[in-house]
């Protein structure tokens, strides 16, 4: 908001407030959001310094002598059926899971937003073409599509990334398209066009920044969804191939030993839930911070 030129001293003027600061202030007010941010920071810290906290060797080195031991001082969360340290496995598994989730979210966001912006802005046949294709993609349940891609192309980081991107980009197309449709009609876009700005410039400088709020909230919430989804895939054996200690895989392994070593199941499960919950808290906090109206 700009300041109104004062005609007489003392007349009310509006303060110019930095939008980002305002959003951050509102975000800080929500205890849940702040808790989520803290939790996630701890998790990220553990993952980034994984090699120092629990070397990869611990995660993969088999030592049948100490197999299936419960939590102890030397092995914080116990060992699995092959004597591998569970804590180390969880941390390293987290690296893969989280990095895939974040990368897949970013790439599906880029792909989907680009398509949505193009469809919304240019309209007409391009719009119809994109939306019809989208309908078809959305008619295939994500998991089946992902399985098909993984089957066809084989397991591996890039293939998994591709599969996840193709499964999730559809979220963004509709979203960005409707934002663009709403915003493209606003007067200041007309003004920009009248001033001679080209289409791409208009999209990038005027429309996208305003759609950003919605995109950011959705992206954050999608990270949580993809974390859960990716763990489901690795549970089914469709994620990264062993010996990558992904969380889903840890849970699949734990199934056999439920009777004797239930902790093998509970700890990775808690890791998944904590991770997803912290991201969800942040996402909710962002949503409330960006649109305070939503909170009665």
């Amino acid at each position: 908001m700009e300041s109104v030129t004062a005609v007489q001293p003392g007349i009310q003027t509006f303060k110019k407030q930095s939008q980002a600061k305002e959003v951050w202030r509102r975000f800080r007010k929500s205890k849940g959001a702040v808790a989520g941010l803290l939790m996630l920071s701890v998790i990220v810290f553990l993952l980034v310094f994984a090699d120092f906290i629990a070397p990869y060797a611990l995660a993969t080195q088999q030592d049948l002598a100490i197999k299936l031991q419960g939590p102890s001082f030397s092995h914080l969360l116990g060992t699995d059926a092959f004597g591998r340290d569970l804590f180390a496995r969880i941390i390293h598994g987290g690296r893969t899971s989280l990095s895939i989730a974040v990368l897949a979210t970013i790439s599906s966001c880029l792909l989907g937003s680009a398509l949505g912006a193009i469809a919304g802005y240019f309209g007409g046949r391009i719009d119809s073409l994109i939306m019809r294709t989208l309908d078809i993609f959305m008619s295939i349940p994500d998991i089946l599509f992902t399985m098909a891609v993984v089957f066809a192309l084989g397991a591996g980081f890039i293939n998994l990334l591709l599969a996840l991107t193709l499964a999730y980009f559809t979220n963004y197309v509709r979203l960005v398209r409707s934002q663009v449709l709403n915003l493209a009609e606003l007067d200041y876009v007309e003004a920009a066009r009248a001033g001679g700005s080209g289409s791409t410039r208009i999209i990038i400088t005027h429309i996208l920044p305003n759609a950003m709020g919605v995109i950011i909230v959705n992206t954050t919430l999608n990270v949580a969804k993809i974390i859960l989804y990716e763990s489901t895939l690795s549970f089914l054996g469709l994620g990264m191939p062993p010996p990558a200690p992904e969380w889903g895989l840890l849970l699949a392994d734990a199934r056999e030993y439920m009777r004797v070593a239930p902790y093998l199941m509970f700890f990775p499960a808690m890791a998944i839930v904590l991770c997803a919950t912290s991201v969800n808290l942040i996402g909710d906090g962002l949503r409330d911070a960006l649109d305070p109206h939503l909170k009665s």
Partner: protein
Amino acid sequence: MSETILDIKDLWVIYKTDLETVHAVNGIDLRIGKGKTLGLVGETGAGKTTTALSILRLLPSNTGRVLKGSIEFHGQDILGMNDGQIHAIRGEKIAMVFQDPMTSLNPVMTVGEQIAEAIMLHNEGIVTAEVDRRVDAMLGMVGIQASRKDEYPHQFSGGMKQRVVIAMALACEPELLIADEPTTALDVTIQAQVLTMIKDLRNRLGTSMLMITHNLGIVARTCDDVAVMYAGEIVESGTVEDLFLGSRHHPYTDGLFGSIPSLTSRAARLTPIPGLMPDPSALPKGCAFEARCAKRMDICLQRHPEKATEGTHCILCHLYGEKS
């Protein structure tokens, strides 16, 4: 002197949120006589809608609060009534028409159903045939074919939607109709139609009215009495003659009249009132209008003005206070 049906005394209303307290209405007195129309004039944010909502106790329950004062309808204080009593009054004795017809109607119910609901809520045991007859009659009164009663709001234009809202409000022939900027959201040509219709209905049914508007033209056409509101206070009130023909006015009223474009004079620029209304969460100690007033004096900054009364004409200003 006609009988007073609505008497508001020293009403104070705030909106309290986590961040701040907004002083929306700060000690107002209003009186509406039987069969009379009171115009409540002011800029956006002056507190007009808040006043109207308070009368029917429709303030948002989580933030709106009446700090003190009384609102008496036929001598009974509305603010002290229980739920049953207030539900009996709403729609039947006092009805309200809101500003935006596009969102005032429920999109998934037919207009006939919505009008019928108003009737059935206040006429226990009424037979369906009678309800239908009345719905048709109301629609006819506002100029809508009765055959359209099974249509949904989205099938009507803005002006027609507002007519439906008015039909709904008058369905039980209330004694008082509160109209909060009923024509502001409509096209100018439709505005005139709807206004004429409201006047006709009022004359026919003898309804009293509280007409909230920022348009002085509407006030001149429809009102008997006027109250000018600024920053939650009534700065000037009187009959419509006092306001339009009188010689002494609150400086704000002067500003309002002065900012109307004239068809006759050849002025190159309009003369708006400079500045903006004070932030209602941080009202000044003295006169609220002081910062924008062309005739301000030192006392205006320090002390809150008192009402100066001359017959039916009241002005809240230091200019007329001690001197008269």
